[in-house]
């Protein structure tokens, strides 16, 4: 379980926008979004923290170990991260972000496959005002999106 991962570049690129991690697999053209706990785990993984350290940094009063492991597997399966032989960062640098998170949510990887259609949306007017592109306003039928 002492696995260390890294961003699967160059086929994957990721950026942080207002606390949300957005990643694109350039081979498949699929867009991924990670928020809250998912974004924290992503950042910890790409910073070079071992999976074991991440699991041990989770708040002790929650039981989402299995969800976190599944989430990391999903990231790897979708070509966003890959294992590396590099050494892990010290555990001490990890805990503060998780502690500041407040109520713990289960990490989910949201994906958007039909980018051709999503990019036709006006990013200012045709999207949810609270979240922004690529999320449709409430009540609109989604294109091809959903959690994995």
């Amino acid at each position: 379980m002492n696995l260390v991962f890294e961003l699967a570049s160059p086929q994957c690129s990721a950026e942080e926008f207002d606390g949300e991690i957005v990643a694109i697999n350039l081979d498949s053209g699929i867009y991924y979004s990670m928020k809250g706990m998912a974004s924290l785990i992503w950042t910890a993984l790409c910073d070079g923290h071992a999976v074991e350290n991440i699991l041990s940094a989770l708040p002790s009063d929650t039981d989402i170990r299995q969800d976190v492991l599944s989430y990391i597997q999903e990231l790897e399966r979708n070509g966003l991260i890959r294992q590396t032989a590099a050494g892990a960062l010290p555990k001490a640098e990890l805990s503060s972000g998780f502690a500041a998170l407040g109520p713990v949510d289960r990490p989910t990887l949201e994906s958007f496959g039909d980018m051709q259609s999503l990019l036709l949306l006006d990013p200012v007017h045709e999207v949810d005002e609270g979240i922004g592109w690529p999320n449709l306003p409430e009540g609109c039928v989604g294109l091809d999106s959903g959690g994995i």
Partner: protein
Amino acid sequence: MNKISTGELLDRTGSLLLGSLSSDRRFAMSAFSDWRSTETLDASDSRARRIMPVLADLLRSQAPDHPDLVLMRGVSRFVWTTNLLKFRLLLQAIRALESESIRPLLLKGAALYARFPGLERKRASGDCDILLKPSDVVRGGAALRRAGFDMSGHSWDDLAGPLIASYTAGLPIKMADRIGEVDLHWRPLWNIDDPALTELFFRQAEQKTLHGQAVLVPCREHHLFSSIARCEPWNANELFTRLTEGAELLREETASIDWDDVHRLIKRYGVDAAAEAYLKTIADHAGLKLPSAALSGLQVSKSYQSEWRIRRTPPDRRTAWQCWRLTVMDARFRRTMRPISPPGLLEASLRRAMPSPLVLQLLWQLARRRVILTAGDDTLRFLEGFSSPETDGVWTDGYWALLQVSEKRIELGCVEFDCVAFSPNKRRQYVWYSGGQGVGWSRFSGPKRLTFRVRSLPEIGGGGLLLFWLPRAASPKRLNVSADERQLALFIRKERNPKTLNA
């Protein structure tokens, strides 16, 4: 020395949006507020959309409660994602070319993103542009075709034809199910056709990395020069894009730029007036401090100013006289390697008058003296007044056109074309032509077969010349048919099988 008034280069919207990019955040916020006081996000044009992530960053730092931020919430994600998906197509094209040992050079925005990776979340890209050496175009085209790229409006075979030597500098290619297009260029600038410039760009190119892929980009001096020289002041969107491109480059690299190198190219191609207006606009509106060397060496004479003023007029509104002036400037600075020199003053003046049959014959006599290269084995050479060759033929563009027929056809005594007139709303075209043996004319709408007699010109080494006067040429844009700004009259299809006069 006369100076251009740069205040007129941008309209108010363009000036304020460029000001919003300033590193001086208070100045930038003031420019943004002035822009928003008269325009809404709903009505914002493509210029504002292109830089909206920067505007959003500005608001986050200067006015975090600004209501626009709610609407702009997803714009940065949208821009970054769109850019990346366009790069995806670009990288596929680069890999396809490298499979044939061809290394393309990135141009314009694509080169800027490779130079400054952080820009890909701040600036919306248009399509990605790559440059190939002309000698690699046919082989590169075959590699791109094998990789699944398509070409719209042309066939891949056209790359082996007269297209490369025409006024067209490149073509868009795309791939089914992929977002965006890649513009495949064989000249770095559409308005300068000089093989030496292409060679220079490749020789001094720098190596960068774009998402793990090693790429070539122009050195910073060549990048800045091409942004300046490409600058067309009549086109507000293109102008703004080129100015923001230069502003980004200068913001990061001003201290490293060898201004002597930039000025050498500016003077070689006579774009001093454009350079002065461009650099002063960036300095004044984007709040960039340029070294004195940036402007001190530029010599902006009256003729440069005159050209710059003409270029502020949209092409479809330029008079024949203005077109002639531009042709003369192109020839003066050897911006193009054309098979014909520009018309002289007498010819330009005669073209402005209402031509009679006698004048048409005289114009033909004057035109034949300007031919530098003869048609050789080419069946037809579209010398002057034609648009880019298309797969099926070529449109005339303007009121005058000159076409050269090869020696083989002259021996047969006549040449036939299938033509289509540009005739929306039952508009009839009048076509006057002179082939050296008198003047003929035709009036038609829609398709027609035209037959012309031609005479050889032994004194210039062979080759027959046909001069067309097309007084009813018009742009589809002005007739509300399409956005096409060319002055169309006649589409000449590929030549028919030759016949002899007596056949």
